[in-house]
């Protein structure tokens, strides 16, 4: 399972793989490195990232991991969590 931490900011949100996920990917895919290490989705005004539609969540994971959708499914899917409270914002499990 790929875990993405989400921090809400005034005009959007910043997304990044949790340290545990980075470690897991480094062990599963030799040579893999966390670059980019974050993705910032912004809007010029206060914006609620929870209103994002499904494909955007997956696109963020594709950017952060540089894996294919199939590889992501093989790893068990994704979950988006707050890094401190661990509140889950979005989940997509492997079929």
């Amino acid at each position, binding site marked *: 399972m790929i875990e993405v*931490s989400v*921090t809400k*900011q005034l005009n959007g949100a*910043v*997304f*990044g793989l949790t*340290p*545990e996920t*980075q*470690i897991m990917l480094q062990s599963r895919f030799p040579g893999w490195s*966390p670059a980019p*290490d*974050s993705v*910032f989705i912004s809007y010029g005004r206060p914006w609620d990232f929870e209103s994002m539609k499904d494909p955007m969540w997956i696109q963020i994971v594709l950017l952060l991991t540089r894996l294919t959708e199939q590889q992501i499914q093989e790893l068990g899917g994704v979950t988006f969590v707050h*890094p*401190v409270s661990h509140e889950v914002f979005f989940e997509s499990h492997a079929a």
Partner: protein
Amino acid sequence: MSQKQNLYVGRAGQMAVMAEFLLRGWNVALPEVDIGEDIFVVKDETGDLSRVQVKTATAKPLQTGHSAQFNVSLDQLLTRRVPELVYVFAIRSFAGWGPFVIVGRNELALEHRSHGVGSISRDDLILRFNVQDSYLRCSDRDFLPYRNDWSRWPVIRH
């Protein structure tokens, strides 16, 4: 060390780090209301902005070298923001300032989670650096790559 002395040492460390940024040609700014030790580092021409959290400690002498201990908020360490936070750990030894240990928030979170760097006390991560001339370790991890690593802010000639 008294709380008041801590405030003086912390402010001195912040100013030592600000001085280094200015010498490198980067502008610095402090929040008007100081509720932490954040410095905003700005490239004048482009407005590129970095957030820097300065942590300061007075070194304690060891048989060889010295050690310095720092506290980092775990919530802050785990929370990603744009612009990303960089920690500058300023060590004041008997010989003066340095080394400065410069670690990105994500790098430090990884060092903690994957290599067990630091120890947790309540809501903080406690880091103890052991420093010698060509040696810098934290929880037995080699931190030499972070020693005086100002490379995020290349020197700007005005």
